């Protein structure tokens, strides 16, 4: 049954030390800014974080890394012009890094939610990221075997939730949201609006409520101009 939390603090309260936490968003789009802030405040540590990047600037995921709360990060693109906190921790040997091609990252997250035990993907074959992975030629094409990435918790951002937990998103802010919600044991979603059951058209629901455990409404979510993040 859907838990509608009163605050982000309440929404993230059960995240325990050592948890694997997926964090949605690609750039600023779909980033659950307020939930990440609440996780920082909450204090859980020794986390494994799954995100497309490894934090930007001094806030959000970057701040979580700076504070030493992240033991390991699984992402596709850690190195950016403003990923200095990750860079420092990495060079100091204080954070473990698993780099995954973005499509394999997405498919591995999808596989976790979909009960797939592993899949053969052509992406990465013959590259350093295939080292140690099983390779196989199928029907004349080369593949490597990848396994699901599951999480204890996911923090994502959607646009509207109904009281059955069904979600719709806005534009490219959809990105990792639907697959992370499905891959996590407990999925926590921040939304701009919560409506009654029956107020979302069942044809346009993107994430069915079965994948959503907790929603929290953020009255005025942070909106960064994407250009400031480059």
């Amino acid at each position: 049954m859907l838990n509608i939390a009163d605050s982000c603090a309440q929404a993230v309260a059960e995240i325990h030390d050592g948890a694997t936490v997926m964090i949605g968003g690609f750039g600023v789009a779909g980033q659950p800014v307020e939930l990440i802030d609440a996780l920082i405040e909450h204090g859980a540590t020794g986390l494994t974080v799954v995100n497309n990047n490894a934090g930007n600037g001094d806030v959000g995921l970057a701040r979580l890394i700076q504070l030493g709360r992240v033991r390991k990060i699984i992402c596709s693109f850690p190195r950016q012009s403003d990923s200095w906190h990750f860079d420092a921790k990495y060079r100091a040997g204080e954070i473990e890094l698993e780099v995954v091609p973005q499509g394999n990252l997405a498919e591995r997250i999808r596989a976790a939610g979909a009960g797939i035990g592993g899949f053969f993907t052509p992406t990465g074959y013959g590259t350093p990221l295939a080292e140690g992975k099983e390779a196989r030629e199928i029907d004349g094409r080369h593949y490597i075997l990848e396994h699901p990435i599951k999480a204890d918790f996911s923090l994502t951002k959607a646009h509207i939730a109904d009281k059955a937990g069904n979600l719709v998103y806005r534009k490219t802010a959809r990105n990792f949201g639907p697959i992370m919600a499905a891959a996590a044991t407990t999925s926590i979603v921040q939304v701009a609006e919560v409506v009654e059951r029956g107020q979302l058209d069942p044809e346009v629901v993107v994430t069915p409520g079965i994948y959503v455990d907790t929603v929290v409404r953020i009255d005025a979510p942070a909106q960064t101009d994407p250009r400031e993040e480059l």
Partner: protein
Amino acid sequence: MSEQTTHQQAVAALRTSETPLNHDELAKIVAADIPAGSYVNLGIGQPTLVANYLSPEDDVTLHTENGMLGMGREAQGDEVDPDLINAGKIPVVETPGCSYFHHADSFAMMRGGHLDCCVLGAFQVDRKGNLANWHTGKPDAIPAVGGAMDLATGAKQTFVMMTLLTKNGQSKLVEECTMPLTGVACVSRIYTDKAVFLIEEDGVVVRETFGIDFDELQEIVGVPLRPAAR
């Protein structure tokens, strides 16, 4: 004379240019080579310029791997929406007939061979069409791959756009890539400031040269070249 005809004549002139092409001139040639009705992904950097030379009559649909088909031009002023960005995290606009989808669906689209063409930058390409564009191989570099491997292996055709020579005057078209690979035998064409190369089963063909003759080109590239059949 229509605007379209004028453009075609300008491109035809560029194909026999007696001087090396600048980035915009090269982008015009790539754009002209993309068949009408194609679905295309343009990588970050130089390939992005190609979008400026696609006309509406071409009916080319742009894909951005963060979850959109029918991506429009860069957003200006009030058009900027933090929820609508491209893979380079630049705000963009919608085009009529566009659609949104999540990250796993977006990369399934790419990996499944549904895109007709993808245009990427490169550090090195070799005579077998192997591509290196994500990692210089320096031991202290932090690895970051993003969607590069998915793009390289996913599309029906992968085009590379790059300057032919490094800053030190070395050819980036090489006998065999020495940098870590992005994808195996994935590149079919290389667009450079000095020439357009086709990677074929039995070797590298020079389709056009710009301000350099075949023998000079052969000398600086090193890899055995063949002129295109006339």
